């Protein structure tokens, strides 16, 4: 019973992360097609970034405490990437904000930001498939 419950929670968390990533992608696409201006787009995305990271962290943590080692291993790279981009670097404070999009340069970074989120999306879908069918 507990196992099922844990699985359900992890499943919804995963769906949540997926949703947030999709939302960010949508903002980027809107920006690209000029439906919203860069200020709005950047602030919407930046608002969604931390929730994404937190949800993902919880998802990971859940696997840790329930002892789903393989799933934990599967989602560790993603977590590592997130943590790395938030973690303050030794020398330069500005890198703290690597995880946020930069409104002034958003158009130059657009292709990269999109690609990044598409990879995340793909990764999450694989995780989802694994957690459902396995």
């Amino acid at each position, binding site marked *: 019973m507990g196992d099922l419950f844990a699985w359900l929670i992890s499943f919804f968390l995963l769906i949540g992360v997926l949703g947030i990533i999709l939302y960010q992608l949508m903002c980027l696409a809107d*920006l*690209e097609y000029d439906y919203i201006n860069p200020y709005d787009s950047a602030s919407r995305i930046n608002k969604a970034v931390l929730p994404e990271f937190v949800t993902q962290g919880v998802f990971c943590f859940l696997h840790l405490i329930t002892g789903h080692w393989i799933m934990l291993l599967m989602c560790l790279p993603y977590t590592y990437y997130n943590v790395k981009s938030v973690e303050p670097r030794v020398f330069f*404070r500005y890198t703290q904000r690597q995880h946020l999009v*930069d409104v002034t340069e958003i158009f130059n970074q657009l292709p990269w930001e999109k690609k990044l989120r598409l990879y995340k999306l793909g990764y999450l879908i694989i995780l989802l498939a694994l957690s459902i069918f396995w």
Partner: protein
Amino acid sequence: MATENPNRPNYPLRPAATPFAAPQSTTPFGSMVGSEASAFRPPPPASSQSMTPPFPSGPFVGSEAPPFRPPPPGRSNELVRPPPPPSSSSSYGPPTAGFQRFPTPPLPSTGQVGPPRASLAGQPVIPPPTRPPGGPVSFLSQTQPASIPIGSPPQSIKTGQPNPNFPPPADQPFSAPRPNVQPSSPPMGPSYATARGNFQPAFPGYVNTQANSAAQAPYMQPASFPLQQGGYAPPAPPAPFLAQQRGYASGPPTTASSGLHFGNQMQHYGVGPPVGNSQGLAEDFSSLSLGSVPGSFDTGLDVASLPRPLDGDVEPTSFAEMYPLNCNPSFLRLTTSGLPNSQSLASKWHLPLGAVVCPLAEAPVGEEVPVVNFATTGIVRCRRCRTYVNPYVTFTDNGRKWRCNICSLLNDVQSDYFAHVDASGRRVDLDQRPELTKGSVEFIAPAEYMVRPPMPPLYFFLIDVSISAVKSGMLEVMAQTIKSCLDNLPGYPRTQIGFITYDSTIHFYNMKSSLMQPQMMVVSDLDDIFVPLPDDLLVNLSESRNVVEAFLDSLPLMFQDNMNVESAFGPALKAAFMVMSQLGGKMLIFQNTLPSLGVGRLRLRGDDIKVYGTDKEHTLRVPEDPFYKQMAADFTKYQIAVNVYAFSDKYTDIASLGTLAKYTGGQVYYYPSFQSSIHKDKLRHELARDLTRETAWEAVMRIRCGKGVRFTSYHGNFMLRSTDLLALPAVDCDKAYAAQLSLEETLLTTQTVYFQVALLYTSSSGERRIRVHTAAAPVVAELGEMYRLADTGAIVSLFSRLAIEKTLSYKLEDARNAIQLRIVKALREYRNLFSVQHRLSGRMIYPESLKFLPLYGLALFKSTPLRGGYADAQLDERCAAGYTMMALPVKKLLKLLYPNLVRVDDSLVKTGEFDNITKRLPLTAESLDTRGLYIFDNGFRFVVWFGRLISPDIARNLIGEDFGGDYSKVTLTPRDNEQSRKLMKILNKFRESDPSYFQLCHIVRQGEQPREGFFLLTNLIEDQIGGANGYADWILQLHRQVQQNA
């Protein structure tokens, strides 16, 4: 205009132009399919006909010289043209007659015996002292190949055996015949094809040939002909044979003496078919002979003969002639006027593909931009792509419809814009419609183009009043300057003005017009900034003029005893933002120290030497605190432009402060170690210019271009509001923006691509206006054509912006290498175009249009933002120069990269006017004579260099009795004597020619270290400085890299 000419399918919309342009356009850009080409080409017999006239013409040489001019048209044709029937080779005979066409430079033949001899000895040919006067000039203008005479490889002496069949020598004679064909009159356009482009030899190279032939002259007269020797008009014995004979004869001497093969000399005589081809190709390139024997001591490169842009930036003219309706190149310059017709072709073009736009450039005299008011009709634009009506639209259906030139949609002509169309398709009212005849126009925009009433010009000053600002005298100079400019601020009587000063607290000033004196309000809560007064902090200048003047008078006094060293810059910035956000406008920041309090405080970070040279290095060049980027974004959103004036002698983190200017379309002015006694004039001039120049407010700019092409990235000081919309809170004539484009479709079907730059802005007078620049550029199918139409200035401008951007995320070295790699790839690709037909070993070849590219590349690597390693320039200076260069228009950038160096002592001593001082010298220490007086002018500063042995009279007259003393303390002030007055006059003349910045004069004496090194020697970019290459080494290095994996 624009009725299609069946003969010229390639060029549907091109306005018929001068005869010169006409043939050219047909040939070069057409997608010259073999069949098409042959259509143009008169049958072989015709060709020989066309040649015959010159043939018997021995005597009338001189008179024919002019026809020379038009030739190049034939050229590119050759590239594709099927090889001419062998029969026509007989026609080579006639060419000889053409020789005589070359009488232009009679001079050198005899006089030059010296040089050739030297070269025989395997040393570099000394460049002939005199260039044939007529030659280079007329030829260069045709974008003809230029080759540079250079040293001779000893090897070649051996190879040059007098063997008639030996290819290389045989080639050379050929160059001679070529010129002959030219006489066939220019208008014969198509026939050129047959004429086989036998024209023009390399021009600069010409000189060299002369030298050669001079050497040969004694023993084989005929030989000299093929080399187009000026003096030898006569012989031209009967045709075919002679030519051959000559070829043979001349062979040995030429090779021996020069080791330099001109591109155009490369045909193989007697091999019918290939001839035409290679000739055609040959015309297209210039070359530098680097014929060094591996391992030999002598590089074989003659430094004096390397190409140098001593005439400054020359805008490509052929293009403008082709499309007379295009806007002036000072507004829009494409990196190449021939756009590639396919993605595969574009991928072979390793240089940037794009444009540099300077929308408000000062139009040349007589070409002011006309203002058009469509009061009744509304502005005529394409329904679909929103293109503005322009000279390239075509009217059809008897004037009831017009076809958009960019998206080719058929639009209805509104009834009140209707005019009949005459038989040739021109509107009858064309001469009253500047928008249909001029490439640049300004439309007065109706209310649809406003989101709010046009804003008044607004100047807001954010002034640091901490101790260093007071001590350096900045405060006083600034206050005086602003006061003196109050009358000239644009937009009277709507102009608004406001001030905030700050040290560890923020001071607001109530300037209400009813007050006598401004009221000062101090806010010391830096964490929670509020504006103490809802209005009256920003006042109308004309109403509050007295209060503003009283404030400016008292400002220096108010703070003269201020001992505060802190600077609450961030909070002050926020406060200013709150005051300005209602209206927008221009914020001028005067910052003297590193921001130390409140949000946005910065720390000293430039002194951490461990970071340099590592992967972290670039982080020093980007803003440290995201606060600045965020503020910049907010400023742009509210139409606030920021200009940063920084004065500190210590680290102020220009990288962070400059961000404010970068994203708001502003500018960074940096005065390291400001001292009012020294820098007063500079600050005064530049601040005054900033305040009084014509400024466009709350502007947005978009560049539209035809189908299949798209602008993908933009470079400069602005912020992108959407993928292709540049937000520019304030624009003026000193700002340029660059953009790169890419092809969206694999194949372009159109023959011409149109570009339209539209800048929507509010003028200072409160009118909403749209400035529209339209230009057309042909689509070409040949890489060679792209190179031929390239524009070095625009390419260098884009390169410098790309490189500077790259330094923000990579090491300096990586940025330099990336650019170098692109130059090398471009040259290699170009070389590959010709390497099949020609023997290129030992030569570096490049298109005539890009002859200065290597030099400017070198200059770019030695410019302040990209130079050397960390010790070679102060971090702040680097960043400030980077921000400046990101906004510079092409001409000013090129002058900064390759500054003027002129010698003036002669003109000072001589009586009379000084017209000849414009002769620019190569930027190398060898140009400096110890007895001379030189002015170095890069557009930002003058350096006056006194040679060690300069006559004491001059020195005394110019700087007074202590001319032997320490020059760092001496300033050049006008003195009461002829020479000093003259020098001042010269300096002022230079200054007037470039008013965007004030060139402060630094006096340097030869051997006075380290000042000499700092001011002048590091800027002599052709010399080897530190670890960087000299010009000759650089060329050799490029050449080596071009050949690797070639």
